[in-house]
């Protein structure tokens, strides 16, 4: 390997056969480059997926009331179940030890106006615990607090994009916005990792909303976050207990599939993770495909290179080259070229990914990256197969009698 003479011989051959060298080097560099960028894009896609779908808290249960489908205890079927504030209180009393937080949510859309700027946004009436459930990040001021809920204040927390739309460069804190002509004071601005839509919302205290809805105490839905320590199994148990409790309380037939729904985000999480897993398979498949294409490419080139050199190899054999030295020469040269070219392709690919960075976020590619180990492994595989692809024809060429090789024109 470190025989200086052999290296000199190889460098001379490389220098004097630039086309051949460029051809095989280019194939390997391109193969690795495409592999690294595609694999990186795949990872970027996965990152985007994770950001969009896995941003909410995962220890969450959503409880919805709905119509019953069975008659029960003298009630007719198709009765509409309605949650009220006391349901919230009961759940808190019953399961408080297992819960991190509990909050109602009443969603309505409203025309929101500040001075001459106005737009229709979704307005969510919530309790303080809602912040943790949505992973809302307060950037200025504060979130809805317990005192807002108790005093039915007309305070609002607006999304980053709402502030941008309505206030422009003007600082929104302490200013007033009109929600369907009722003035609310802006006490906080938030951002959310879940994308633009999540940042086009307004949060107000749920008690205020109930008062505005002519003094009702109805609730659209209840959102609970349970302690993560209870785990997935504990969450399923909690879900079952709450279902039985609420059905008994609202006189719903225990066997009625409708009436009350509970959505467990932990289950959603599993589905999303499965989907992310499928994405991972696709990324791996694309990567493998590229790698195989690269291997086929380098194999073809190597077969061609050896074919082209048949006569030269015949001459070398006639003047004393042993079959072993012929094979060694071809392998040494091909491994050297593929290693250098593979390294160049690797650097180019990683450089390209770094350059792209988050510029393709609009195309759902976030922070495209490739694991260094994966990239190096791919390069190694390509070099290895390049060597194998060179070895087979080289061995054949080394075997043919010099007289046959010399006749080859």
């Amino acid at each position, binding site marked *: 390997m470190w025989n200086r*003479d052999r290296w*000199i*011989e190889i460098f*001379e*051959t490389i220098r*004097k*056969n630039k086309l051949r060298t460029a051809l095989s080097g280019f194939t390997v560099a391109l193969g690795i480059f495409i592999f690294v960028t595609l694999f990186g894009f795949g990872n970027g896609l996965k990152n985007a997926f994770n950001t969009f779908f896995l941003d909410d808290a995962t220890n969450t249960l959503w409880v919805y009331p709905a119509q019953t489908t069975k008659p029960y205890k003298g009630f007719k079927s198709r009765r509409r179940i309605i949650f009220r504030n006391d349901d919230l209180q009961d759940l808190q009393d019953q399961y408080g030890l297992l819960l991190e937080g509990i909050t109602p949510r009443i969603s309505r859309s409203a025309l929101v106006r500040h001075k001459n700027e106005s737009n229709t946004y979704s307005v969510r009436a919530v309790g303080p615990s809602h912040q943790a459930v949505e992973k809302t990040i307060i950037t200025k001021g504060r979130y809805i607090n317990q005192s807002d809920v108790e005093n039915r204040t007309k305070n609002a927390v607006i999304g980053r994009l709402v502030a941008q739309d309505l206030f422009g460069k003007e600082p929104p804190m302490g200013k007033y916005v009109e929600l369907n002509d009722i003035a609310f004071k802006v006490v906080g601005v938030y951002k959310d990792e879940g994308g633009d839509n999540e940042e086009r919302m307004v949060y107000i205290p749920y008690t205020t909303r109930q008062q505005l809805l002519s003094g009702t105490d109805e609730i659209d839905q209840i959102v609970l976050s349970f302690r993560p320590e209870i785990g997935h199994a504990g969450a399923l148990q909690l879900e079952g207990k709450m279902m039985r409790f609420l059905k008994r309380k609202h006189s719903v037939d225990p066997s009625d599939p409708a009436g009350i729904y509970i959505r467990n985000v932990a289950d959603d999480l599993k589905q999303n993770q499965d989907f992310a897993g499928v994405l991972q398979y696709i990324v791996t498949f694309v990567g493998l495909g590229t790698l195989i294409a690269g291997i086929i490419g380098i194999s073809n080139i190597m077969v061609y290179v050896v074919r082209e050199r048949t*006569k*030269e190899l*015949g*001459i*070398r*054999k*006639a*003047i*004393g*080259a*042993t*079959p*072993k*030295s012929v094979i060694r020469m071809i392998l040494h040269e091909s491994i050297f070229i593929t290693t250098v070219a593979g390294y160049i392709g690797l650097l180019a690919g990683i450089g390209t990914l770094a350059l792209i960075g988050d510029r393709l976020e609009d195309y759902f590619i976030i922070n495209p990256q490739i694991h260094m180990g994966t990239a190096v492994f791919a390069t190694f595989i390509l070099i290895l197969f390049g060597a194998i692809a060179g070895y087979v024809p080289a061995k054949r060429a*080394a*075997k043919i*009698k*010099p*007289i046959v090789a*010399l006749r080859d024109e």
Partner: protein
Amino acid sequence: MITLENIHKSYNLDSNPLHVLKGINLKIEEGDLVAIMGASGSGKSTLLNILGMLDEADEGTYMLDNTRIANMSETQAAQYRNKFLGFVFQSFNLISYKTALENVSLPLYYQGVSRKIRQSKAADQLAKVGLAERTHHLPSELSGGEKQRVAIARALAADPKVLLADEPTGALDSKTSFELMALIQEINNQGKTIIVITHEHDIAHMCKRIVQLKDGVIVDDKRIKQVNALAHVE
């Protein structure tokens, strides 16, 4: 130097075997200059290939410098070729991307000679064939005669026992041919055993002995009065 006894060789072409050499007996002493003549198809190229260990005989014994040449592995054959034989081909067979000097030093490379010694020996050899000025030219920059001189220098670089020349003047005009034969005679005069395959009578008569081949057997083998090639070169 060379002894052939009852050499037979057949090729299987389209399932009916073609008997090319039908019992060749030949003895060549050290320092001889032998021309092997014959029409095409007479078996002279096959004979040269067997002499050059590029091909193996089916039957018979081949002794080269008191060594029996038979059942050799490719590696052994390569080592023997390198040590005992030098080849000169009709189509020169120089490596196109290597300079004259690099071509000539290649047999030494395969002997494991160090780079410096290789280059100085190759330069000496090129000077001997009159190409001292051409050492760094590529084959494409040399004339036909010059290319064949490089080939001869290469064949001699490893100081082989026998020089085998297959139609060495086949691709050259007559003046260049005679110049080349003069060189071959000069090398022979220094003691090297040389075998020349040719179909040209004037070339054959510049050797010391003519072996006539016909249909795979030697029909004539005689010593001749050598014609001095230099006399033909004005």
